[in-house]
Structures are given as structure tokens and as C-alpha cells.
């Protein structure tokens, strides 16, 4: 085995009321791709934040050895200087700036007192070539898709000459092509001597790329597995992560679908005045009582726009077409109307649009349905805590108490709070936009189980998902969306990955 480039020994990190890491040891060999897996809240992100100096020396106990030297980082700058680059799940690019400005932001190339823009652009082009991103360096970041933005982030890290690159769930928001592309790039970087730590909930991806895998559970190191010795398989990983075996990724279900149509949309078109173009063209679909309908498609194909145009149109699109809710022609002018009619929408981007991060778990869960826990406009604090605790138990939100600030929860648990919030609205029609993004296998299974339970109780679910296995595993019927149109409809018996991809790229 090659000598370790990084050794973290006996790391313990506590937050008020939570021991996020207890006595964790973690070793990464030089030049390998080391995956870090574990359930939501296991402490993966926290461990990486300790390593990169976000939590400075002194706020945790234990020792960090990097390149054979003891390191006491007091901030990100220190770890950057030592050659550690970290890419957070939330991208940290400035959308209004060009690609080259972003790459060298905070690390400007200067000639005397001024920035040397020509040299900057030349070097940026080199970096872009390195990450195999074929865009003009003068493009604004906001005009790039998520996958390309991710590559720009990596280019930015590489421009600082990193020896160790940390990626926290980089592929969570990427489609399959972009993900594969990113993984290829990591393999490529490995050839050039860059060591990588990769956090991911997508086990297939982990298996395909990892040299070594470390599993964390409840803030402790469970084991470190060597892929070359054939120790890594999906079953083994799940067992170590969850602590028990899960044999099926999708819970079995008796079909509960009826013939009663609860939602029907016809000739539905939407024009976005801000973008100055049509985002939806002549969409038609229906949803039956007790049915899960999957909406598959590429990123940016218009699925989120469709959901939002139905759910009270908060973006102010100009909409043409008809919508029937339980046979009655309706149009929601505000999300409030939609909620009142029994429609709920779990947003795709929980941080920006779903949750209020500075408020606590109970306040977030009850926000969309305060009426139920209030009388004459006065909130009943006891009822609120009770409701929040019910959901904490039923979907297993890992938090010390429901009075914890949501911003302090791990990514996956934030997603569960977001789901709980919309379940509490007690809808008949639930729209889930990428419901399991960033969620661990165990929790995914829980969410799927809940979905099944809900449809059995007569709810109808629209599931927007970019993960084809999930669409195939959970839906009764699949619509495929492509550039703002419905490009196909398949009953689940006929749906296959190939057919869906074919229709989606069409």
C-alpha cells in the first residue's frame, strides 16, 4: 500500500446536543480515489469540514496529518495553501461572473497592481481543457448547466494546485451523462497524481470508481474496505451503512391505482416573460386516484416548470390551457389556492426554495398548514411540537429535538423535513420534485414506503425524477418530458431505460 497522504486520528467533534463525530480515524493513501459513505447525518460532511478548516483547529479534538505533517488549520485558506481543495454540494460560484473570473476568484493573477486578464484567460482555458469542458471562458456561469458548473468548480480547485480534492455529493444534482463524465474526469485526475475523496449516496457510482471505501455510521468509523481485494459490493456497503440488511431497494406494492382522474391538464403552454421564451408547449397529462406517475426527462427539460405552473404559478408565467382538478375546471393563481385545493409541491432545491434554514424543525414542518395548529390565529405551541415529533418519528428525521435549527441538520435530513412539511398539508395530490436527491439508501426506502402507503390511502403522486431506476421502480405510468413537451407516455410494463432515454433525448 502506498504511504498515506492524509491521516485523521481520533477526531471528535461536538455541536450543542449532538456528537457529530466520535473518535473517527480516517486514512487516505496517496493517488487513490477514496469514497466516504454513510447514512444521512453520519458525519461525512462534518469530517470534511474539519479537514478543510471550516471548523478550525481547537473546535474539535484529534489530530490531522497531511503530507506527513501535523496540520492545525484555522480556516479554509490554510488548508488551500497546504493543497487541499473542497467542493461543497452547494456550488460556490458567482453566477453573474464569467467562467475565467470564477476560476481565479480569490486567487487572481496579477501583474504589478492590476489583474492580468490575458494571462488569466489563457490559464483558465488550460484548466478547462484539463477538466475537458468545452466552453468559451468568457461565458457567464449562470448560462451553464449544473453539470458544467460542477466542472468549473473542479477547474477552480485545480487552478490552485491541489494534491487532495474533496467532493461532497458532486453528482447528486447531475444526470447520468454528466455524472459519468465527472467520474471519468476523476479517473483522469488520478492518473495525474491527484488524490480524491468522494462522498456519495449513489452506491453504483461508488463501486465503479472507488479504490477504497470508508463507511461512517452515527459519527463512528465502521470499516474501511479495499476494492482491489473485492471487498466492495452494494450489499456489503448497505449492511455496514445501515447496520442491517436491505434486500430490495424498492418496497413491494400492491397496485392501488383506480380509474378516477383527479388531475387533468390539457393544451397547457407557458411563456416565461423573464426569459422571453416558451417553457412549456402544449402539454397534456392526467393523474388518477391512487396512482404514482413518474415524470422522466433530462435536466432542464421543463418538468420543474410544469410542476410550478400547476402549483399556483409563483414565477408569473403567462399560461394558456385548461386544468381540471377532480373534474372541475380550475386555475390556481397563488400556491395558497393550490394548497387549499389539496395540492402539495415538494421543491427540488430545498435550500433555496423549500426550507427556512434559520428556523427550527417544527416551524418548518408546520409553516404551510399553520391553520391546523392554531385557533383564532394564535398558534398552539404544544400542538406544534406534537405534530413535529410525529413526523420526526414516522419518517425518521435525525435531530436531537424538533427545536433544532434546520440549517444545522445534515443534507438528507433537511430533505426529510421538507417532505414532512408537505405531508402535513395532508394533500390529495402530491408533487415530488427529485424527492430522494441526496438521501441515503435506508431513508430512500423509507420515503418509498411512505409514498406507497399514501397512494394506498388514496393520494395521487406525481414524481419528477432524473434517476431512471427510481422512476421505473416506483411509477405506475411514466411521462417523458423533452424541451417543454411531453414526448411520450409509457405504462410501467412497457417502460425500459432505453425507451425512456430515447424519448427524452428526442
Amino acid at each position: 500500500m502506498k504511504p498515506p497522504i492524509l491521516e485523521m486520528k481520533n477526531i471528535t467533534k461536538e455541536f450543542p446536543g449532538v456528537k457529530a463525530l466520535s473518535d473517527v480515524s480516517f486514512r487516505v493513501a496517496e493517488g487513490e480515489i477514496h469514497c466516504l459513505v454513510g447514512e444521512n447525518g453520519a458525519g461525512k460532511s462534518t469530517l470534511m469540514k474539519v479537514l478543510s478548516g471550516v471548523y478550525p483547529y481547537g473546535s474539535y479534538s484529534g489530530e490531522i496529518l497531511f503530507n506527513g505533517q501535523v496540520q492545525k488549520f484555522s480556516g479554509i485558506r490554510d488548508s488551500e495553501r497546504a493543497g487541499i481543495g473542497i467542493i461543497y454540494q452547494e456550488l460556490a460560484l458567482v453566477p453573474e461572473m464569467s467562467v475565467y473570473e470564477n476560476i481565479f476568484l480569490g486567487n487572481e493573477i496579477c501583474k504589478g497592481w492590476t489583474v492580468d486578464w490575458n494571462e488569466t484567460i489563457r490559464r483558465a482555458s488550460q484548466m478547462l481543457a484539463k477538466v475537458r469542458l468545452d466552453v468559451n471562458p468568457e461565458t457567464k456561469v449562470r448560462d451553464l448547466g449544473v453539470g458544467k458548473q460542477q466542472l468549473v468548480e473542479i477547474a477552480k480547485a485545480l487552478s490552485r494546485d491541489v494534491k487532495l480534492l474533496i467532493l461532497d455529493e458532486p453528482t447528486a444534482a447531475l444526470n447520468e451523462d454528466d455524472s459519468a463524465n465527472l467520474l471519468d474526469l476523476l479517473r483522469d485526475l488520478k492518473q495525474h497524481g491527484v488524490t480524491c475523496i468522494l462522498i456519495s449516496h449513489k452506491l453504483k457510482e461508488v463501486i465503479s470508481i472507488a479504490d477504497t471505501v470508508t463507511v461512517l455510521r452515527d459519527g463512528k468509523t465502521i470499516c474501511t474496505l479495499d476494492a482491489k481485494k473485492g471487498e466492495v459490493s452494494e450489499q456489503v456497503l448497505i449492511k455496514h451503512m445501515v447496520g442491517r440488511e436491505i434486500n430490495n431497494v424498492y418496497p413491494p406494492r400492491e397496485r392501488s391505482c383506480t380509474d378516477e382522474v383527479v388531475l387533468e391538464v390539457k393544451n397547457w403552454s407557458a411563456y416565461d416573460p423573464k426569459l422571453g421564451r416558451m417553457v412549456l408547449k402544449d402539454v397534456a397529462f392526467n393523474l388518477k386516484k391512487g396512482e404514482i406517475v413518474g415524470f422522466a426527462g433530462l435536466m432542464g427539460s421543463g418538468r420543474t416548470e410544469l410542476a410550478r405552473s400547476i402549483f399556483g404559478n409563483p414565477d408569473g408565467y403567462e399560461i394558456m390551457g385548461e386544468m381540471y382538478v377532480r373534474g372541475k375546471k380550475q386555475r390556481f393563481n397563488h400556491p395558497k389556492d393550490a394548497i387549499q385545493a389539496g395540492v402539495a409541491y415538494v421543491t427540488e432545491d430545498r435550500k433555496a426554495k423549500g426550507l427556512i434554514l434559520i428556523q427550527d424543525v417544527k416551524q418548518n414542518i408546520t409553516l404551510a398548514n399553520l391553520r391546523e395548529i392554531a385557533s383564532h390565529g394564535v398558534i398552539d405551541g404544544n400542538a406544534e411540537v406534537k405534530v413535529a415529533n410525529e413526523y420526526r418519528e414516522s419518517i425518521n428525521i435525525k435531530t436531537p429535538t424538533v427545536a433544532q435549527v434546520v440549517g444545522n441538520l445534515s443534507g438528507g435530513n433537511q430533505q426529510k423535513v421538507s417532505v414532512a412539511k408537505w405531508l402535513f398539508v395532508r394533500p390529495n395530490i402530491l408533487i415530488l420534485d427529485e424527492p430522494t436527491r441526496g438521501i441515503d439508501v435506508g431513508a430512500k426506502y423509507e420515503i418509498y414506503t411512505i409514498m406507497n402507503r399514501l397512494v394506498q390511502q388514496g393520494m395521487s403522486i406525481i414524481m419528477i425524477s432524473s434517476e431512471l431506476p427510481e422512476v421505473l421502480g416506483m411509477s405506475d405510468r411514466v411521462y417523458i418530458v423533452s424541451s417543454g413537451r411531453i414526448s411520450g407516455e409509457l405504462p410501467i410494463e412497457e417502460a425500459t431505460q432505453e425507451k425512456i432515454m430515447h424519448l427524452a433525448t428526442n
Partner: protein
Amino acid sequence: MEFFQNLQKVLRQNIREYGMFIALFVIMAIFTYSTEGIFISSRNISNLLNQTGYIAVLAVGMTLVIVIRHIDLSVGFLAGFLGAVAAIALVFWKLPVWVVIPMVLVMGVLAGLITAFPVAQLKIPSFVASLAGWLVYRGALLLSTMGTGTIIIPDEAFNAIGNGFIPDIPGLDFFLPKVHKLTLLLGLLAIILFIFSEIRNRRKKQEYNFEVLPLDIFILKLMFLSVLVGGITWVLAGYNGLSWTVVIMLIVVAIYHFVTTQTVLGRHIYAVGGNPEAAELSGINVKNITYVVFGSMGLLSALSGILFTSRLQSATTTAGTLFELDAIAAAYVGGVSAAGGVGKVTGSIIGALVMTSLTSGMNLMSIDISLQYIVRGAVLVAAVIFDVTTRSSRK
């Protein structure tokens, strides 16, 4: 020893909240020392609280405006202008007080809604919309006092709002003469209510396994606040007792505190501040919340105008100058965050007290007005820096 460890830990965790009280305490101590006790005299404290009144009610409204990520610069001259309207109505139109006050309050609400209109409907920055209001109301104030100059108000009932005190319980002269018994009684009641509600709250939190203060620290906190309230009550009772201004201020704070912490409306306001987009998707009408918050700001501006005019017993051409900045400063000292969604009305009241204590203390020490501005500026910056650093270090 454990006690001190606990104390240290609690102070560190809640430094922002307690820091304000400590700052107020330190400021008062310094002025008491340097004025040889005049600062803490019954008369001065009574005056100080009356002066705080018209800024404090503005600060309460401003807190909510800042919580929803806006600002309202028009409130100072709006208060001045509405004060002048009240004076004109009383003096020239000969309307009775009980008509004038509701009328002015309604005008305040309307003015607030007018400011809110371009902000809510057209997404014009509130800074610009309310700056326009600042100019307009300043002009309106000058216009309405142009012919007459200062308008003296002879109405006693109206003037009592800013200068009068609550009556005492009659027939108790044998017991503690020279002390205002009703004030003492109210103070005592307040302390008892406060202690009971704190104990109930703590019990409930323990029931849910929420974090609570360690018992010894909890008792210390109760004692500290009881002594504070008791002290102020005693000082006030030694002069004329509670003034009507203080009573009004307390009622306003109580109502706003209740609304912001216990009601659906309050929750919606803080949700809009915390993440407008998430709030909208949760079925909250962000526009309506904007109207409500600006409307309330207008109402409180009118109230502030009434308090100030009544205190001076006249409407002047410069009434309301710089009130908006004092209110904004008080809110920031009291811990609101410009990033939105954070800030308590009770904090803003303490903030207002800090700012008026500074003015009052420096006046007593006959410090020149030029220096006073500089000191207040420094305190404002210090408070905000303190806020930002303690917030980020707690992560």
C-alpha cells in the same frame, strides 16, 4: 465551581441576547458614576423613558420592516407631519381628542400602505420608495405649518399623553407617602407574572427534552430581571409614577411581542423574512405580508407623532427630523439582521433605551452635540460588529 462553568457557557452561547442588557447596564453605570448619581435619579429616569417612547414605538415597527428585508425611511417626517395634522385638527378644526387620535392613526396606516404599494406590486426597492416618502412628508410638514409656524396645543387631555402620569390609588396616604403605590403594585404584578410564565415555559421545554438553562443560571436570570424591573419601578414610583407614554409603550410592545411570537401572522412575517421564495411556495402571500408590515409601520409612525407632539405640546416645523435613523439604529442595536428573518421587538426596545440613554447621559454631562453624534455612531457600529461576529462564531 460548576456554577461558574455553567454561567460562562450560557453567556457564551447567548452572548448576543445578554450582551444588549449588559451594554445597557454598563452605559447606565458609567453615566451614573460620571454625573454623580443624577443620571439614575427618579426624575431623570422618568424623563428618559418618556423620551424613549416615540423612538421605541418606531423601532418596534421598523424591526418588522427590517425582518422582511425592507427599510422605511419615511417614518420620521411622517410622524412629524401627522403630529402637525393632529395639532391642526385640535386647534383650528376644533375636533375633540377622541376623534383626532383615531383619525391620525388611520391616516398613518394609509400612508404605510401607500409606501408599500410600489414595493409590493412593482418590486421597487423600499429604500427608494420610502426615500420618496421622506421628501414628500417633509414637504407636507413644512406646508402645513407654513402659515402659522409652531402650533401650540392647549388641549390638556392630548398633552397628558406625553407629559401626564397615571393616577395613584386614592386614600392610602398613611402608607409610604411620596411613593406612587399603583406603580409599585403594577411593577410587583409584572414581576410575579414574569416569574410564573418563565417557570411554566421551562417546565414545558423540559417535558419536550428541549435545551433549557441550568437551574442555577435560570434562577440567576430570574433574579437579575426581577431586580431590574423592580429597580426601575421603585425609581419611577419615587417620582410621579408611570407616565402615560410608558404605559402606551408597554402596551405596544406587549401586543407586538405576542403577535410576533404566538400568532400565525407573526410566523408568516418571519417566514417571509427568512426565505421569501419558500414562504410564497408555502402558500403565504408575500405581497399581503408586505402591506401588513408597512401598514403597521405607518400606524406606529402616527402614534410616534402623537407622542412627540403631545410631549412638546406643540407641532413644529422640524418635528420628526432623524427619527427614522434613530429607530433604525435602535433596531440594529437590538439585534435585527439585515439578511432578514431575525430580530425581536423586545430587543429593539432595549436598543431604543440604549440610544436614548446615551443621549440623555451625554446631555447631563453637557457633552457637545457634535461629539454626541460621533459617540452614537460608534456605539451603533460596535453593536452591529458585535452582532455579526457573535452570530458567525456560534456556527
